[in-house]
């Protein structure tokens, strides 16, 4: 990995960090908007009650339930934001594929064009010694590209397995594979190169294969 690639990946990393934070802030705004309007409606009902006007008591119950649910949704969002923020703590570490996929699916879930997604977690988890932040970046970019091209009725299924002792494979399967054009783009290829990963298309799936250890990345990011 040359200096050019390191610089490119760092710049992209900052853009990626910014775009994920923007989508999280949008999600939080939506949550606050719901809480704000529901609290406003509770106030309207209080005023009606003061005027001696009757209304269904279930409206009050719906309001309090809605506020409680949105607060829980807010906590969930902040948990994901926190988990994402900590992905830059260690430049290189043993990283769980299942955890990285789960977080990427949750983060892309804030985007308006997200699609229904299932991660097959029936097998045992696999770890790779890599940059957790760059891996998150690669998976996030892949998911975004798939969601943008997929039909609204499509369900994306993700599988992962150990291809051989040194290689991990992630398979993305959904209905309209042919609609995914211009992928991987240059930026995604740069991230994949840095991770020693390759992106291939089969007849039905998109497959990302990656080395379980990456000496070049070690040297570049951890300075070892």
């Amino acid at each position, binding site marked *: 990995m040359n200096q050019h690639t390191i610089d490119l990946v760092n710049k992209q990393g900052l853009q990626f960090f910014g775009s994920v934070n*923007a989508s999280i802030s*949008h999600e939080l*705004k*939506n949550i*606050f*908007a*719901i809480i*704000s*309007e*529901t609290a*406003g*409606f509770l106030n*309207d009902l209080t005023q*009606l009650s003061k005027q001696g006007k009757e209304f269904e008591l279930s*409206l009050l119950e719906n*309001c309090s339930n*809605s506020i409680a*649910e*949105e607060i829980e949704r807010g906590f969930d969002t902040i948990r994901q934001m926190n988990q994402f923020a900590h992905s830059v703590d260690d430049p290189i570490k043993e990283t769980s594929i299942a955890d990285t996929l789960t977080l990427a699916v949750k983060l892309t879930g804030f985007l*308006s*064009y*997200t699609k229904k997604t299932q991660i097959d977690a029936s097998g045992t988890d696999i770890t790779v010694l890599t940059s957790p932040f760059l891996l998150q970046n690669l998976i996030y970019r892949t998911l975004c590209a798939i969601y943008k091209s997929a039909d*609204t009725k499509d369900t994306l299924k993700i599988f992962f397995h150990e291809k051989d002792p040194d290689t991990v494979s992630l398979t993305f399967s959904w209905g309209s594979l042919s609609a995914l054009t211009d992928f991987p783009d240059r930026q995604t290829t740069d991230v994949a190169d840095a991770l020693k990963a390759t992106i291939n298309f089969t007849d039905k799936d998109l497959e990302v294969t990656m080395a379980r250890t990456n000496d070049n990345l070690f040297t570049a990011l951890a300075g070892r």
Partner: protein
Amino acid sequence: MTDIEKIHLLMVDDEEKFLNALTERLKLKFFDITPVTNGEDAIKVAKKAQFDVAVVDLQMPGIDGVELLKILKKSHRFLEIIILSGHATIDVAVDCTKLGAFKVLEKPSSFDKLVETITEAYESRMKKKFEKDIDRMKKIQSLAFGQSPLGILRELKKMDDNQK
């Protein structure tokens, strides 16, 4: 307020809970509201019923707010459209205004501000319609001279087609 005086409002937002809470609140303000959760349904209901004002969320799956604004403005020229945006930047406001949006409000916006903007949008619609009606009356009066009854009907049909 009678049904005739009520402002007919189309609300479009994919956040169902936000839509429901806002709908309940606006109902108490005597608006007649049709809430829908996506652009496709908004286009369908706008074909069947006449609305004075539409409040449209910018970011939605499928047909987004900008696309919906273009489609609704094309087929319902007097419909005033207010855009709600989570990130109401100047760029977004300028782009949407160029496409015919009445105003862009940041989401969440204060309820009073929203009600005020909907009322302003309604007044703007009525003013435009009134001006158009006056114009139409003048044209009809001018048609009445020197035209056969069939010719007048043909001209009226042309005018109606242009008003859609």
